[in-house]
């Protein structure tokens, strides 16, 4: 798993390439929490490169979403593929996130 951090104006976009499984989830959690803290919640997770996500990965996303909810923010997911979307829908976690077709749309939502 590789994590690319990009700045779209004042918004931090974390793009993940590869599956989120096992220990990778911990690394992603740390990066997400750090990014949301630094950017005051202006954070987008570009999920276009996430091919697979396991329970640990889901737990990570839920933890980050909960953490952001405490400050009135939501974790914005962009370009999640069909597999990831189905996993989120089937586990009933889709409502925890804001979904966008692409990262730019997600960035625009901060305007």
């Amino acid at each position: 798993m590789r994590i690319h951090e990009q700045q779209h104006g004042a918004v931090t976009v974390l793009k993940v390439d590869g599956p989120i499984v096992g220990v990778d989830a911990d690394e992603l959690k740390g990066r997400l929490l750090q990014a949301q803290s630094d950017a005051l919640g202006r954070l987008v997770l570009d999920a276009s490169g996430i091919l697979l996500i396991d329970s640990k990965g889901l737990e990570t996303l839920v933890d980050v979403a909960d953490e952001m909810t405490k400050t009135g923010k939501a974790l914005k997911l962009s370009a999640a593929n069909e597999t990831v979307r189905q996993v989120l829908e089937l586990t009933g976690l889709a409502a925890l996130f804001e979904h966008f077709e692409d990262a730019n749309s997600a960035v625009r939502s901060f305007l």
Partner: protein
Amino acid sequence: MGFENVVKRLTPRHRPFAQGESMVAPIGFGIVGILLAVIGASAWWVLRTQRASVRAARLDQVHTVCNLLSQSAEVMMARKQLSSLRRLVAEAGREYDLTQCRIVLPSGQVVADVHPSGITFQKLPPSWSEVSQDVPADSSNDHVISLNYPLDVPGRGPARLELTAPVTYPSWSQWEGPAGVGAIGAAALAGLLFVYRRTRSRLQGMGAIREALISLEEGEAVAGALGVSANFGPEAGAWNALLSEREKLRQQIVTDRARESVGYNNETHRDLAAACNTLSQGLMIIDRKGRAKYLNGAAAAFLQVDRADALGKDVVDFIQEQEVVDTIRAGFAGSGFRRTSVEVDRGGGTSGVLRFVIRPARGTDSAAAVIIIEDITQQRVAESARNTFVAQATHELRTPLTNILLYVETALEQGDSDPALRDKCLNVINQEGRRLERTVGDILSVAEIEAGSYQINKDDVRMDEMLGQLESDYEAQAKEKQIGLTFDLPPKLPVLQGDRDKILLALHNLIGNALKYTAAGGQVTVSAETVGSRLVVEVTDTGIGISEEELAPVFGRFYRASDPRVAETPGSGMGLALAQEVVRRHGPVRVRQGQHVHADAAAAGGGRTR
């Protein structure tokens, strides 16, 4: 009813009777009054009857005496026995207590009298007028009986007996009957009082309950005021038990309502707190001593404090923005808070720009002000980008327009004498005109995208024709910049189902960008291949490239890469955004690191090719 009305109008303190007496006392007074009236009437009737009896007896006695005297007088006067007659009259007068008893001739002369001095005729004549005189009528009243009896003296003539007798009522017998009636009445009264005494407490209880019911009807709700003494009997006890039960129910209702209200308030408070925590804006309430009374999660995040630690602390101790602190201090030092907005730029990085809106708290005594904190960093960045866009767009419009005007002027002045120069001018004017058209098209497209009205009108698009046109369009420009432009196209290209103008616009932007950011001696290659049902067009250049961090944002509107070589080249920052939007609406678009721009649009008709 009159008595009841009086009792109803009187407050308990001013009522003339003790509790419960309002019903008992009228009954008692009524019975006693009736009893006394009956006793009085009975006594009067007995007295009247007794007097009538005494008078009747006296009258009978007087009549009897009259009959005896009249018979004796007629005989004695016929025999001239005057002395015996006078003695008889005198004895009768004494014996029967007669005030007057005399025998009178028609001439008015008195032959015999109970009082000897009253005799006016000493010797009885042999005869007197036979004409009988009218006998005076009897005149009697309650105290005197006066009778006149006619006499017929055989052989002599008429006479009359006048008799007056007083009626004497013995005093002891006069009051005997009324006294008896009175005694009986007194005994009855005593019995009644005895019964009243025995039943009074029970009646008082009923009366007290009745008074309580009247008070209840008048609106009295205090149980203490409605209760009756337990000494009034079992009815009073039952009534008090009912009141007690009612009071318990009332208290239970009040308690339930209070609990419900408190519970509702608590629930509402929790709901409000939860709602405030869902706000992306920070919300903080400052009390009148300048301490943080409440702050939501977003406020704590913006101020970079722990909520629990911040609560109750002086806000100037943890708000780091001096301008905000000064505004708060001014609010406490002056006449109060006024709605104020303070924007604070926290410097570089992602700390961003925060807007603090300070408002006075209305309708509460404990809170002084409310601070709303908004993160407007992205808005400020967007504003900056728009400003840059306006400047760049102005440049993009002005440059081709200037060129057009310049070459038009040259063509007009020298075109007639130099046909080659005129053709060159017209060619430049044509190129600049199309460049201007594309720029205006870009601006309009961005405006449509922003407005949400950007639409794709699909039709058959012959890609071989389009790419050929593009090659023709950019051939001169590439040659002028000494850049190699190659269109590596297969012999047959599919016909797409898409919006020709917009696909052309997207490819113009991709190829134009490649030429724009490639230095002289570089190479730009446009290739296309059919992959399944899709057409993949790649624009590859040997230009300055795009860093990995900017691969995604480079497609943002008004975004220009941070490379200083990009800044040296005019551009609106719209081209790639538009290209992405066009291709996204036809299919996916990807950018590979380096110099590739990879557009992938679905071919029509399941891969139909020509």
